[in-house]
């Protein structure tokens, strides 16, 4: 009875902004630097220090908010979120609370609840134990990361399954990457995602009790973690129990979920307005100037690929949401002289992706096949120098070995036998002679029989003949 319950999923995403300096001080940001080399009295929380808001981070925040279709608050403020932890030097995080920078947006099918700015915590490493603070021998703090500007994006609970969550997060990542405000890398932690998950009887509207799932540091783990949590909740409810509000930790190694915090131990963050900062005032001119400067974003690009290039929704999304692949496609389409953009897109989203996976390449845009080679291949097929089948074989070779498709065709004599070529006509005649029964049927108007004749021609020509041309010749000769 798995379908009796409907999962309801909302995501909370943290994105580190790629500003030159930290959110509230002048320390430079550098991933992977020697620990505690990018610190100052302000980001170490020394007595008497004060934060000063990084203007670039505000600009990036506005860009993200606009890219996600949010309304930008003309006047937003920072709050202090209070809790004790060694990764939080001041004992509070400066964040936004009741008036976020952006609100009420959407990306694809998912509504955006809010977009706000805050500062990142420092990085903790627990040694000599499980890697978590309890039972560790010592805890080391690297304050380089502390104070990195973050934009937090909170969705409405509009997602209904784990695969969609993963797919949507891909769209979000591409969108932010397109803006150039972050490298949105999950492994390095510049993109982090928590999920709020609940289930409810299918067809009902009331939200069930949610749990928060943390620590999913790859796209695969997000999907697996959410699936595991949905299953856990379903198990509880189906055995007559009730889901308790809690924060869960997903362990990617074992795929298991452990309880991080139950409701009784939920933090009271005692938010109050940050008195050390003045309100963020963003005027309408600034909003319009930022909006005008935004690049074409994936959702718009997908729509354009569908309406202008004529791609199906999946292919359009594939190219629009994978910036690198999209870029590969755009360049190849530009270089192709005969093939149109749709034909090139079909080669890229179809065979190029499939062969790159089969050959275990990390990314279809990073195989041995160059943009020029793929463009040229599409042209060769389009101008019927080779047929599609040969085209596929050549592309498979390009992916693993590289090279110039025209040279391969030339060197191996793979060129299609075209209509003006006596060889093709001879092959057609030979096929008619070899399959007289089929030829008779075609003469009698039974066109289904033509397949056997085409097959014979193809065998004869080792697949180099153009199928359309062969059919045309057969019909010409047999009067079908």
């Amino acid at each position: 009875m798995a379908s009796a319950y409907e999962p309801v999923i909302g995501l909370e995403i943290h994105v580190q902004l790629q500003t030159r300096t930290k959110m509230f001080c002048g320390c430079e940001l550098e991933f992977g630097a020697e620990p505690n080399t990018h610190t100052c009295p302000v980001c170490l929380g020394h007595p008497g220090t004060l934060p000063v808001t990084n203007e670039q981070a505000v600009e990036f925040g506005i860009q993200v908010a606009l890219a996600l279709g949010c309304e930008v608050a003309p006047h937003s403020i920072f709050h202090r979120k209070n809790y004790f932890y060694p990764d939080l030097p001041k004992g509070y995080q400066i964040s936004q609370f009741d008036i976020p920078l952006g609100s009420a947006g959407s990306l694809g099918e998912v509504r955006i609840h809010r977009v706000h700015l805050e500062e990142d915590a420092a990085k903790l490493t627990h040694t000599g134990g499980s890697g978590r603070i309890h039972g560790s021998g010592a805890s080391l703090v690297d304050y380089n990361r502390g104070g990195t500007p973050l934009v937090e994006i909170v969705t409405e609970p509009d997602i209904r399954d784990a695969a969609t969550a993963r797919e949507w997060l891909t769209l979000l990542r591409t969108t932010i990457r397109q803006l150039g405000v972050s490298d949105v890398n999950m492994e390095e932690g510049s993109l982090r995602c928590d999920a709020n998950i609940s289930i409810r009887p299918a067809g009902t509207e009331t939200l069930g009790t949610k749990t928060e799932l943390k620590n999913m540091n790859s796209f695969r783990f997000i999907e697996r973690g959410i699936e595991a949590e949905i299953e856990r909740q379903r198990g509880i409810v189906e055995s007559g129990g009730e889901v308790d509000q809690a924060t869960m930790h997903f362990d990617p190694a074992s795929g298991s979920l452990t309880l991080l915090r139950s409701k009784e131990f939920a933090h009271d963050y005692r938010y109050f307005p940050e008195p050390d900062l003045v309100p963020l005032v963003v005027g309408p001119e600034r909003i319009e100037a930022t909006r005008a400067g935004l690049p074409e974003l994936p959702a718009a690009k997908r729509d354009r690929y569908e309406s202008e290039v004529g791609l199906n929704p999946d292919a359009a999304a594939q190219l629009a949401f994978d910036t690198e692949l999209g870029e590969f496609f755009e360049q190849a389409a530009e270089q192709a002289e005969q093939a149109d953009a749709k034909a090139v897109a079909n080669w890229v989203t179809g065979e190029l992706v499939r062969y790159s996976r089969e050959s275990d390449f990390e990314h279809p845009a990073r195989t041995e096949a160059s943009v020029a080679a793929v463009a040229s291949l599409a042209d060769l097929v389009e101008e019927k120098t080779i047929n599609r089948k040969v085209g596929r074989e050549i592309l498979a070779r390009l992916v693993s070995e590289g090279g110039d498709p025209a040279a391969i065709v030339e060197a191996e004599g793979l060129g299609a036998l075209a209509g003006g070529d006596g060889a093709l006509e001879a092959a057609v005649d030979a096929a008619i002679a070899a399959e007289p029964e089929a030829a008779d049927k075609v003469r009698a108007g039974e066109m289904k029989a033509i397949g056997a004749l085409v097959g014979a021609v193809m065998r004869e020509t080792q697949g180099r003949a153009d199928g359309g041309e062969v059919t045309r010749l057969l019909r010409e000769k047999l009067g079908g």
Partner: protein
Amino acid sequence: MSGMVELSAHEAAAAISAGDLDSGEYLDTYRAAAEGDQLNAYLCPIDDEPAAPPDGPLAGMPVAIKDIFCMEGVPTTAASRILEGYRPPYTATAVERLQQAGAVPLGKTNMDEFAMGSSNENSGYGPALNPWDRSRVPGGSSGGSAAAVAGGLAPWAIGTDTGGSIRQPAALCGIVGLKPTYGSISRYGMIAFASSLDQCGPLTTSVRDAAQLLAVMQGPDPRDSTCTGIEAGVEVPEPGASLEGLRLGIPKELAGEVEGMEAGVRDVFERNIALCEELGAEVAETELPHAAHGISAYYVLAPAEASANLARYDGVRFGTRSPEPADLTEMYEQTRAAGFGAEVKRRIMLGTYALSSGYYDAYYGQAQKVRTLIARDFDRAFADFDLLLTPTSPTVAFELGARAADPLAMYMSDYCTVPMSLAGIPAISIPSGMAAPAGGGPELPVGLQICGPAYSETRLLAAAQALEEALTFDRAPALGAGS
């Protein structure tokens, strides 16, 4: 030599600039005085060789610094045990500006721990004493700065005022104390108590001294986004300033109606008002209907901000740390239990409670509304009056220990000064007479508080100067403070 300390600081600065006074000799005199401190006014002397005196307006002038200001490499504790041994890696903007003007820090002065208190008894290092009567408090929290200046241990000093912490000790020690408009002087490097209220200011023996220190320290600072400076600048008042034609208001809630105001203080205040009229001012009663709620609002807002501001003292990065904690929570608990004094703990708990989920609206939210109403009260009053006058403190200096057991009685010390802090407006206390304490005994100084609209410092100082001249207050306590 003894004539030297009879000069007010700006007179000494002028004499040094004119070559009539040797700056080295002047500095040595005050260093010796600070060395012989019997008032526990100083927590830590600074005897670094001063940099070659530049051509600044304060060239060679020693100045005492409240221990709440960070100075690179100089022990800075905010009079808390939790910061024992802490040497900041940077210097506060206010101190930096004094140094750039040529001033020489003389020492770090005693205070109530983290500026929380009105008697200096909350210092983690013992109370500073009132130079007029060493059995009495100098007021607080800038009690060390006030005692040092009144006791001749420093020509002038800087302090901080959150709800009266400059004005009240200035009144109790018979000196001038100025809290400028919020945002006039950078808070960068000033250890935070309540960020939306804290403001640096001078404690001096004359109004002109206060004006001069303010002029040097004020101005925008890129490191403090709440600091705008006083755009129109600050004019140091010339002798011979006049009150002629000034409209002065007496808010009844902070004058006649103050509960627990000593008769002697009331008498002095009435004589002060009469003097203002003699000097040509138009004086009339006015009202600040919400001012009576100032203390209640203040003791919600200030502790709320303090509960967050003091979270950083966790033993992780600086200050003291519990030696053998079993785990992280124990480290926090033991470090903070041992490091903070009782009043600081009380306020952290008050503030934590006021911000807690379910209580926020009833306490913090309500207090913010009161704050807004008080600010509006002042706006209305300043539509009719140029400046307002009140007694600075309802009482003269009280005996050590007299209010230590009763926090509420102690909090009432700031009854007349807190509303101006909540409104962010400038206020100055000048010595305005002597009065016997309620329980009898020798007379002690009484302060007169004058406040004006935001950024009206030049007008405020000119009026204070006129009154100072007319009052001819004898500023020296009878007892010597040094050995």
